[in-house]
């Protein structure tokens, strides 16, 4: 009987195991969907609030943003929004950027999303606790 790999005592199955995909794609897909679901009420709330504040001056806006529930929803919105944005833009970059720039584009996008999210949250908290 002929053996293909004389040296190995391992079965064909054990040699094949672990050589498939990274199995990480499904998780990103789920994260995108879950964050989308969270963003539906948050963004609708935000859009409605902005419409209600069309004629508001600075003070009215600040007083509104300082109410605890509004501060909370704004922080949640910023976190969810940039989380979802990073996931979405990652797919866009992976689809269209194939050169050596890809890694840098992904890094730059990720850093920008984290930085912007934290800047927005800090600004909201600064107003909330001022």
């Amino acid at each position: 009987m002929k053996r293909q790999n004389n040296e190995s005592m391992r079965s064909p199955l054990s040699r094949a195991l672990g050589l498939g995909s990274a199995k990480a794609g499904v998780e990103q897909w789920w994260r995108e969907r879950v964050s989308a679901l969270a963003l539906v009420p948050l963004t609708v709330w935000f859009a409605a609030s902005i419409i209600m504040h069309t004629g508001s001056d600075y003070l009215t806006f600040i007083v509104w943003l300082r109410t605890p529930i509004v501060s909370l929803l704004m922080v949640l919105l910023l976190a969810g929004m940039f989380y979802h944005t990073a996931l979405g833009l990652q797919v866009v970059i992976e689809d269209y950027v194939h050169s050596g720039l890809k890694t840098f584009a992904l890094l730059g996008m990720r850093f920008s999303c984290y930085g912007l999210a934290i800047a927005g949250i800090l600004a909201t908290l600064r107003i909330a606790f001022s």
Partner: protein
Amino acid sequence: MTNSTPKRLRPLSPNIQIYRPQLTSVLSIANRISGIALSLYAIVLVVWLVAAAAGPQAYSKIHVFIGSGVGRLLLFGGTFSFFLHLCGSIRHLIWDAGYGFELRTIYASGWTVMLVSSALTIIAWIASSMLAR
């Protein structure tokens, strides 16, 4: 066969430009484009919040820009991008749950997305202009 010419014209698979745009393909790319646009508007949101935290002067500068013609046009584009992405994403979530894959349903939901997102954009602007008075 001794044909060894290295260059022979081989048939190519049709490129994306060859296809006539269909509602399904247009909405598919529209969801991606509106998503990219919204990530730029997210930057505006942060700038706006940071300006509000910085004080009334910085805030009024942002407000003057948003109130200008260019600002209003950009805001209108942002409103439409938002509602289009919102409705399109809800359509996608329904697909992800396993519903609505029949061709008729796909076209019905596609036109619904177009109609509802346009209507919501117009309603939002009418409501905001009425409140501004």
